[in-house]
């Protein structure tokens, strides 16, 4: 039998099967029926072709899946990712996740900065407005008191409506005092409300951060398991 694939370096191919020849048996001795041998070899050849095709398509499938796992790189030449590359890849993924987390924290901090700054400014404004108002009320009251005193001094004959004026002034003073009190109460309630909402927001934020950090912990654990 002369068959090329007997060479150790070579693998058996369907072509080898086609080319194979068997020497005829000597006359008078029994041999295989040549047709049967041919038919059998054809079957073997078909089987071999199918196996090889299957192998190629499986290899392509393996390559496709590997590329999908490794992400972007579409290395058609079939270059494998080494352990090193996989680690660098994982480092990059974790780095970008960390940067995202950093940005979230920075944004939250900037937001809280703006909010407290605004609250502080608003408070200063309200206080100074209230102060101005109070000053005005006091000023007005004292100037009226001065006028009233002067009027008493300068007008020896007591006009009958003077008594009425005085009681009107008293009523006015009482009104102003009450007004001032009400205003102060409102201001206090407003400021306390604002402080309460800061505290409320603070509690919410603390909860959210804890939850977020718990989630970060979980997802980080998952990533690490995959990369190994």
């Amino acid at each position, binding site marked *: 039998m002369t068959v090329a694939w007997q060479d150790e370096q070579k693998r058996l191919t369907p072509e080898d099967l086609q080319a194979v020849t068997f020497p005829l048996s000597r006359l008078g001795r029994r041999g295989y029926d040549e047709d049967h041998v041919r038919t059998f070899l054809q079957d073997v050849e078909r089987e071999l072709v199918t196996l090889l095709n299957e192998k190629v398509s499986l290899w392509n499938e393996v390559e496709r899946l590997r590329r999908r796992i490794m992400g972007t790189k579409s290395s058609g030449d079939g270059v494998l990712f080494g352990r090193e590359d996989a680690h660098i890849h994982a480092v990059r993924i*974790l780095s970008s996740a*960390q940067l995202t987390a950093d940005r979230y924290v920075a944004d939250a901090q900037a937001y809280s900065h703006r909010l*407290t700054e605004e609250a*502080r400014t608003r408070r200063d404004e309200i206080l100074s407005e209230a102060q101005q108002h109070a000053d005005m009320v006091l000023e007005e009251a004292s100037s009226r008191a001065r006028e009233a005193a002067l009027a008493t001094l300068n007008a020896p004959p007591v006009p009958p409506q003077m008594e009425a004026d005085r009681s009107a002034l008293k009523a006015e003073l009482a009104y102003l005092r009450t007004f001032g009190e009400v205003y102060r109460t409102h201001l206090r309630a407003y400021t306390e409300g604002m402080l309460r909402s*800061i505290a409320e927001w*603070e509690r919410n934020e*603390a909860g959210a951060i804890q939850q977020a*950090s718990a989630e970060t912990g979980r997802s980080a*654990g998952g990533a690490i398991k995959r*990369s190994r």
Partner: protein
Amino acid sequence: MDVLRLKDSFAKIALHGDEVPLFFYSDLFIKHPEVRDLFPISMKAQRDHLVGALGQIVGQVDRVDDLTLFLQGLGRDHRKFGALAEHYDVVGDSLLATLAHFAGDTWTPELASDWRDAYSLVASVMITAAKQDEATRPAFWQGTVVSCERKAFDVSVLRVRPEPRLDFVPGQSVAIESPQRPRLWRYYSIANAPREDGTLEFHVRLIDGGAVSMALTCGQAAGGSLRLGPPVGVLTLDTSSRRDILMVAGSTGLAPLKALTEQVASMPRPPKVHLFCCARTADGLYDLPSLDNMATQHRWLTVVPTVTSDHAFKGETGSVPDVILRSGSWSGHDAYLAGPTEMVRETSARLTSAGTPRDQIHIEDFGWSEP
């Protein structure tokens, strides 16, 4: 070890900026996920600290004495962060991997061995300092909030009981970590002299957007827990001096000076103390009632409330150094200053030019490493 080669390679690697510490921490956390827990959620500040510390170490690598002091402090400091001796090896591995990654083709076996030698030197100094520190005190103190009292719109006074007892010198500070802001430590001065019951007071000002100050002022109720680092700081009373004392406190800079005043009160023959308590507006003078109370008890103490930008205030108004210098002559006094950096610097400069010798002016030295 070739120092020049080391410095040269670091300078080249440092050109990659934030990429370098980013790679380092990711490499570390992938290889040793358990270490991630020792760091805060946002790593931005952490990365800057790392680059800063590396720069300082590489810059001083040929000045061993300075470097050793720096590293010893760093080693002690890292105890409260939960750093253990075994962490130094894994950090070293990731550091070398990072340097190799960024050095690329220029990474040679010689360079690798330079860095390995340098790092093991650094690590051994830090580990030794931490071990020595371990023999004398805990890594951190567990604190329980006794009370949290709002004194002004943005200032709260926090009373904390540390466990075990925390010994300190009046004027010193400790780093505080709130469980609401894990792994973020901020320094606060202790506002009292040591007490029988061991409690500590802190004056916390709410800083706009400040992560920790908000957790400490708004989120605290009695019974809450905090962690406290070891006491640090040099703004302490010069007990060998017989001079009278000038104290200038801006805002919550009052805390350490109040502690010093309490210490003076316990002296058999207290010197005269002039305490200027300064704030921007009148409602920033959050602790005046308690100071006035002390002043009525102690004849040696004079408290001068000062407001810088509210001219309607019935007391001293104007810039802090102006008010102080027009109120008297301070060249024969020991001066203790605490408060906003700008105020302290200006006051110190004006006092010096008005004749107070530099070594009689005491200010906090923020040279200790921040976490």
